[in-house]
């Protein structure tokens, strides 16, 4: 079941990628699209040789099974089509409508997509990647809380593609001032039971009656809130310590270079 869902979400991602690719409109470059540089996607094949698109397809996703005629032979969406996707989102998917960016904001996003397409290779970040990796696994003790490609101790976020999701400046801020921006799904909470025991950890889930949190050790606790004497939510505090004074300037740069190199391609 989850596997089938993964197939459909893969398709959704693939279709998003197509739309990004379509943002390039310079006719002179259409003969030599940047897409050539990337590894082309090859779908799995059925035993009888057709692309295997079998799975559970929620009707609400409205994924066309035929190439829509309006795209003709084009490889790329026009800016107008791109604007429509940004404005209205893709109904039935996680792609939200961003009409509130306004005409100027949407134009800027389209320009940015053009820039992304022009740079088919990730930005080069100065620093010694190998040394950064050593710091991550050694001096920093980062694997005590983070996984990369699923390996490591899972307390904080998985970082296997963090370089694709965060700029170097974002990464520096997270390392030096982790509390500046804490993701809501990593909220630090401190629970005190009626018996007087206190447990701190990251909120894993919460509803109106119960809360689940995980300790740094990986131990999961689940309580009915009515059974807690106290429940503190520390939205301004990151579970991660600051590394500002732990690393030298060069070490910090090496670590950022390593993290930037993590782009989900294991």
């Amino acid at each position, binding site marked *: 079941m989850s596997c089938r869902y993964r197939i459909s979400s893969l398709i959704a991602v693939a279709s998003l990628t197509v739309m990004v690719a379509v943002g390039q409109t310079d006719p002179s470059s259409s003969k030599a699209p940047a897409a050539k540089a990337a590894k082309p996607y090859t779908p799995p094949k059925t035993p009888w040789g057709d692309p295997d698109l079998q799975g559970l397809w*929620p*009707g*609400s996703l409205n994924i066309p099974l035929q190439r829509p005629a309006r795209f003709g032979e084009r490889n790329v969406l026009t800016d107008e089509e791109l604007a429509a996707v940004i404005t209205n989102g893709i109904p039935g998917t996680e792609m939200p*409508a961003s*009409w*509130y960016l*306004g005409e100027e904001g949407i134009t800027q996003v389209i320009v940015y997509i053009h820039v992304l397409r022009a740079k088919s290779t990730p930005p080069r970040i100065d620093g010694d990647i190998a040394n950064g990796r050593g710091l991550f696994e050694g001096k920093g003790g980062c694997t005590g809380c983070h996984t990369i490609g699923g390996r490591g101790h899972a307390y904080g976020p998985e970082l296997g593609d963090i370089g694709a999701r965060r700029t170097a400046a974002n990464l520096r801020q997270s390392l030096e001032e982790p509390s500046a921006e804490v993701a*809501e799904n990593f*909220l630090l909470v401190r629970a005190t039971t009626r018996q007087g025991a206190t447990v701190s950890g990251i909120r894993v889930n*919460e*509803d*109106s*009656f*119960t809360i689940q949190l995980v300790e740094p050790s990986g131990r999961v606790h689940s309580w009915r809130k*009515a059974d807690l004497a106290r429940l503190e*939510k520390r*939205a301004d505090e990151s579970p991660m310590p600051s590394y500002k004074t732990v690393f030298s300037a060069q070490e910090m740069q090496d670590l950022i270079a390593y993290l930037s190199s993590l782009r989900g391609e294991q």
Partner: protein
Amino acid sequence: MRLLFSAVWFAALLPAQVPYQRILNADKEPQNWLSYSRTYNGQRYSPLTQISPANVSRLKPLWTYQIEQMDHFETTPIAVDGVLYITEPPDTVSALDARTGRRLWRNVRPVPGDIVVCCGRVNRGVAILDNTVFAGTLDAHLIAFNAQNGAIQWDAKVADYKSGHALTLAPLAIDGKVIVGVAGGEYGIRGYIDAYDAKTGKQLWRFYTIPGSGEPGHDSWPPGDSWEHGGSPAWVTGAYDPELNLIYMGTGNPGPDWNPDTRQGDNLYSCSVVALDASTGKLKWHFQFTPHDSHDYDSTEVPMLVEGMIRGQQRKVLTFANRNGFYYVLDRATGEFLAGKPYAKVTWTKGLDDNGRPQVDTSMEPSEKGTLVWPSLYGGTNWFSPSYSPATKLTYVSVREQGSYFYKTEAEYRKGGNYIGGGERVVAGDKASGAVRALDAFTGKQKWEFRLQSPPWSGVLSTGGGLVFGGSMEGNFYALDALTGKPLWDYQTGAEMYSNIMSFAVDGQQRIMVTSGHALFAFGLQ
């Protein structure tokens, strides 16, 4: 099989299953639930007492009915003598055996691919009268089904769905008539409320919720044609006072929603409650909660008709927990404003004057950069029902505490196209929350509250057993003590709850029914 046979056999003996007199006297048969809010007064109160604070801890799910669609499942089942009648999204009507949840019949209507609905392919339930079940459709038809086998008796086209009209509400069946209103406030429709002959499907009257040229109230729109696309839909089931012979229905936002520049004036009868003569559809009175609305504060909530002492005088009133964050008490014969008080955080106005009219605060208007306003466009509450308990004399409201940034953009009318002039971005996560609040029904004063993790999309049900049931977006189905709000029981249903809760009894056993995710759950004592 035996159950199915006995249901058919029973019905065969009684071709007129649910004559009007039965719905009118619904309190004589608390084991059934014969109308959207059970009784015409809209109270969504079940007099059943079997499940109580003393034994609710033993409440268990007894059966589950799964639908085969991804859309929100918002139906209120109608319960008649051991059979439940429901709608399933998008446009399916089913009859279920109330003991087991096994289906007795189903009528699946194909939905045109080009329907235009703002907010999901939803339907909130059926009505029943005599031997006929009535349901509205997303392509704006009203359809009458034989209650025994689901066969279509008649099919009335209420509107052209291609212009953005749709029917999402449960119809209201009264003596010989079926009352519906249209959705479409985001598509530049001119809203209306219709009555159809229950036997034939012939239209009996139509009340336009925006007065036409020459009619009183037309001058609340500027010269030009803005009134023809001014919205004011009516997409939630109303209440009915048989003695006054008045139907009360809430109306939705004026259009375009967030850019009011082209519609200067109060924009009657948008964001109002209208009292209509049930025989003729003529307007008896109206009360406009939000004149010249620019925040999409539809007044499409369920009016509740209650009787009680106000300032030392026994009065018949209409109470209304409005999406704009205020709770209102009106005289239901005249529409006179008696009380109004916020039940949720409100920043769009500084308050109400002595006539219940909100004071204008232009700094809270939608803007190009976004204006942070409470409540969000989803309101302090929304379509999901409130409840009034005659036992506690309290009104229970499912409350959304959430602000949002309101944006304003240009709007141009095109048939079937969005005509909204802006939009919003909600403040979500831990910055938003929800609650069930118990209010003094006649003053709006808060008696207690039960906090919810996030803003809910589930209504509440109060019962003669002294309980209030509600649902949360994290899947909690729960029971509170109706007098104190103390949580007494909860069950994790495993999905977001867009639900309206009801109760009935089968074989003398009380059931509490709730939808969650894509399933209908039956709860009872074990």
